[in-house]
């Protein structure tokens, strides 16, 4: 069980019921549970979509697309059944927020799925949880059974004459499956290989039917928007970036943890006030602001508002909310290598630029970090990454290329310091000596 943290700057929306025993259905109902579904049942589908659209809620999985707009792409009439698919395959390095939602507030996700279904005219939802999260899958299986037993799911929900089914599904270890089209392949019992788009899932998704795919945090936000109103939610954040966000602080900070802060919260403040700063009196080298696929920000670039648009302008991405902090003793070449090792391992191999690109980059970085780097390698790695961008079915290739380009561009000197037989200048300090105070 992951421990909870708190900070006075937090605004608790999605995490409101954390630590309140809300996995218990009675307790959840006491805490305003399933009121949003009842309200949504009395609304017109288009009105639900409009509320979500104007709340400024954007996809919490990383792409940051307006959720209501995504819902509006689902055709009204469809010869095939429509589906809602909750993406709980959380596996972007640096991200550990969906885990807390499933652990503390599983019914909020179920509610979000039902409301999404009411909005787009679907009667079936699936909640996909990564295989490693077995204890969370068990919590979800029980929560679903409880909801069925109480008539909140199944036939004639809340006596409305409407039917709605929600099922759980489990993965078995694959980062790539967190990508929406690979997620559908996996749910259909296949290897998680991406599909080409168009057609987009909103038109042709699960078993060929129109499908809405939303991240678990996105769906857990929905009930609060329905009850609190679009305006309230939008005003919590910055323009076009409604609401709050679960930020996962990790790496070299005094108080790592998952904090719910308003969209647009200042990154510097997040690290120094909320996270308590860098341990051992060290300086900051950089921050990966939204999971391993997002380009690193240097210490000079962290005075920014953490919302999708501002970070895009700053040359990075808000991504999935994983804020990884690197102190001055971190070797960027090593960090780049570990990041690439991950993408090489997780590349499904379907698209050549990604499969070959990640492998070449990993091999070059291994050689480079070991002191066998050549000057031309630096530009070659950049060029190779550049040529992976946009040339794959899914964004895994981009996810590997973007951070690599930023490491090279912003920390070129560190790469040069590794050249031709020179040992890593950071190796004399092993990670153990660099460790902040640990529990």
């Amino acid at each position, binding site marked *: 069980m992951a421990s909870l943290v708190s900070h006075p700057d937090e605004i608790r929306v999605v995490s409101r019921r954390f630590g309140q025993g809300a996995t218990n259905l009675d307790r959840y109902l006491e805490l305003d549970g399933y009121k949003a579904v009842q309200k949504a049942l009395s609304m017109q589908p288009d009105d639900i979509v409009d509320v979500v659209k104007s709340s400024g809620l954007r996809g919490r999985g990383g792409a940051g697309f307006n959720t209501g707009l995504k819902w509006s792409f689902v055709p009204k009439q469809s010869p095939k059944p429509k589906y809602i698919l909750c993406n709980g395959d959380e596996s972007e390095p640096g991200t550990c927020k969906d885990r807390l939602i499933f652990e503390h507030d599983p019914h909020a996700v179920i509610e979000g799925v039902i409301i999404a279904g009411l909005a787009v005219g679907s009667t079936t939802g699936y909640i996909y949880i990564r295989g490693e999260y077995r204890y969370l899958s068990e919590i979800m299986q029980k929560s679903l059974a409880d909801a069925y037993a109480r008539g909140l799911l199944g036939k004639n929900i809340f006596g409305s004459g409407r039917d709605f089914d929600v099922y759980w599904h489990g993965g078995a270890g694959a980062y790539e499956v967190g990508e929406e089209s690979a997620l559908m392949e996996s749910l259909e*019992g296949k290897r998680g290989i991406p599909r080409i788009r168009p057609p987009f899932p909103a038109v042709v998704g699960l078993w060929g039917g129109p499908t809405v795919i939303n991240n678990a945090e996105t769906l857990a936000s929905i009930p609060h928007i329905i009850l609190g109103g679009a305006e309230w939610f939008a005003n919590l954040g910055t323009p076009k970036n409604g609401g709050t966000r679960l930020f996962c602080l990790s790496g070299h900070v005094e108080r790592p943890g998952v904090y719910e802060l308003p969209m647009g919260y200042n990154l510097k403040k997040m690290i120094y006030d909320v996270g308590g700063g860098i341990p051992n009196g060290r300086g900051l080298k950089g921050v990966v602001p939204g999971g391993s696929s997002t380009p690193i920000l240097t210490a000079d670039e962290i005075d920014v508002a953490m919302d999708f648009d501002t970070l895009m302008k700053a040359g990075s991405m808000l991504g999935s909310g994983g804020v990884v902090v690197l102190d001055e003793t971190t070797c960027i070449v090593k960090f780049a290598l570990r990041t690439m090792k991950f993408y090489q391992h997780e590349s499904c191999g379907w698209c050549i630029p990604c499969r070959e690109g990640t492998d070449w980059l990993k091999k070059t970085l291994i050689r480079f970090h070991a002191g066998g780097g050549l000057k031309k390698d630096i530009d070659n790695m950049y060029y190779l990454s550049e040529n992976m961008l946009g040339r794959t079915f899914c964004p895994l290739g981009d996810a590997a290329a973007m951070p690599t380009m930023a490491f090279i561009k912003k920390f070129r000197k560190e790469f040069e310091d590794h050249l031709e037989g020179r040992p890593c200048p950071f190796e004399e300090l092993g990670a153990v000596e660099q460790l902040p105070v640990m529990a």
Partner: protein
Amino acid sequence: MRFSDQFESRFSEMLTHYPTKRSVLVPTLLYAQDEVGYLSDEIIAEIAGRLDLTELEVRNVISYYSMLTTKPRGKFNVQVCTNIACMLRGGEELLEHCEQKLGVGNKGTTSDGLFSLEEVECIGACSWAPAVQVNYDFHENLTPETMDGLLEEYRRKTTH
């Protein structure tokens, strides 16, 4: 091939969740693996038969997912995360420590069959790094010392 009653009831229930039988495959393989520790030829044949798939189709899926294995592992699979957030807080040193303590390398199994060791990618414990999963249980904010205690605890579990 005989699975537990719990497996069977979950399996038949899951079949009612989807328009195609094949959709139960990935979670079913993981639950089947948990029954005996790995996906034996017998299990693969059984599941393929139940879902009207060829064994090749099932193996094709197994080879894709990192948690699925066709080789036996130790009773306790110690999975050490060394991805970025854990690396920054000593994940690699923790892996090295486990290698020395258990006397096996990555993906190795101790001679008594008790422990396997595996270096894994991000397990979603970044804010509580470094983290380890033993089978499905998370253990977080570890140091080499607390890791020793943890391994000892698991060792004791088998003698009682």
